[in-house]
């Protein structure tokens, strides 16, 4: 069952498409990642899903079971959350909860709970103007959760954080996953691999790769050979460019990473190559690619 389905979702700014015919389907009960490099259109997409931006064309359909204003069912953390600096952290989350439909008492209770969950207990009575970036990020997560939405949308929740904050927030998201559906954007594959189930890789406003993370990992794992030589390997590498076992090749002066179709054929061909042997091989390793390589491949070109 999908919570949100978009069809041909498009957003154009002065003639250039930031989001270009996006078809997404965000499933309930799991964590979905929107992965893409800077400028891929992630923020633009999320803004349309939350209703903050109007699509130029295309449709967004929210699950039929949840009727009415879809903002009721969504909690949102913007990429750069802006708070009322004159409020305290506690006041802000209570306010957000009340706007989300909670009574004052419920909002206060929920705020208490959430602020200790995100680790802001000690500073909840301080004015937000005095919060650090990391504290604001965590406060932003608390305000997104306060009205118990069906789906929380987090725009680059960990990008602005230091390694410890990053781990904390990812850990928190792992916990949240049990209770709510999560859609989050990131430009780091590693973050997505750590917690998400489904993944959409976007580039230039289009989905390039999508699907179940585990399946994708299996599908796109390609046998790879890492090659190191004492002498420069650059010139020689041109000689295998057109071999039919070769998929992709990338390297520096003395190192080469070769992704291949058939590992047996490739190994045979390489090890029997006289010219290569003369370059004095120091390392010959066979491994499997990760999604990272794939991500680099699709987003670099």
């Amino acid at each position, binding site marked *: 069952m999908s919570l949100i389905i978009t069809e041909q979702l498009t957003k154009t700014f002065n003639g250039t498409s930031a989001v270009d015919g996006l078809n997404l389907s965000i499933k309930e009960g799991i964590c979905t990642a929107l992965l893409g490099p800077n400028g891929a259109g992630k923020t633009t997409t999320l803004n349309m899903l939350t209703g903050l931006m109007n699509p130029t064309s295309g449709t967004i359909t929210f699950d039929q079971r949840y009727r009415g204003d879809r903002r009721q069912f969504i909690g949102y953390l913007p990429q750069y959350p802006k708070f*009322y*600096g*004159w409020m305290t952290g506690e006041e802000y989350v209570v306010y957000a909860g009340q706007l989300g439909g909670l009574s004052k008492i419920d909002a206060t209770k929920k705020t208490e709970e959430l602020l200790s969950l995100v680790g802001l207990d000690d500073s909840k009575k301080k004015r937000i*103007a005095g919060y650090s970036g990391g504290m604001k990020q965590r406060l932003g997560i608390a305000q997104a959760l306060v009205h118990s939405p069906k789906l929380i949308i987090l725009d680059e929740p960990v990008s602005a954080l230091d390694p410890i904050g990053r781990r904390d927030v990812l850990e928190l998201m792992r916990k949240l996953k049990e209770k709510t559906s999560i859609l989050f954007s990131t430009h780091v594959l590693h973050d997505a691999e750590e917690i998400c189930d489904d993944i959409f890789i976007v580039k230039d406003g289009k989905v390039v790769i999508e699907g179940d993370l585990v399946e994708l990992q299996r599908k796109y794992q390609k046998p790879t050979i890492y090659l190191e030589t004492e002498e420069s390997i650059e010139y020689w590498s041109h000689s295998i460019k057109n071999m039919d076992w070769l998929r992709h090749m990338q390297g520096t002066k003395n190192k080469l990473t070769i992704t291949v179709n058939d590992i047996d054929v490739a190994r045979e061909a390489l090890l029997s190559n006289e010219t290569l042997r003369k370059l004095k091989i120091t390392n010959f390793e066979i491994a499997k690619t990760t999604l990272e390589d794939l991500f680099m491949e699709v987003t670099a070109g």
Partner: protein
Amino acid sequence: MNEILLELESIPWGLIAPLVIIQLILLVVALVDCFRHNNTNGPQWVWVLVIVFGGIIGPIVYFIFGRRND
């Protein structure tokens, strides 16, 4: 000399005093605000001067243009 003293006596000070008090309140509130959040538009000391030496409108000008909204 006597005349001036008479004049001074005839001035209803009870009615004028509130003006002074109000201006003092404005001055103090503006100064407190200016010092408490040092988030003024432009250098803080300039605003302190404006508040203190700007007469009646000093504090008002500070409240309108001196505070950065947060």
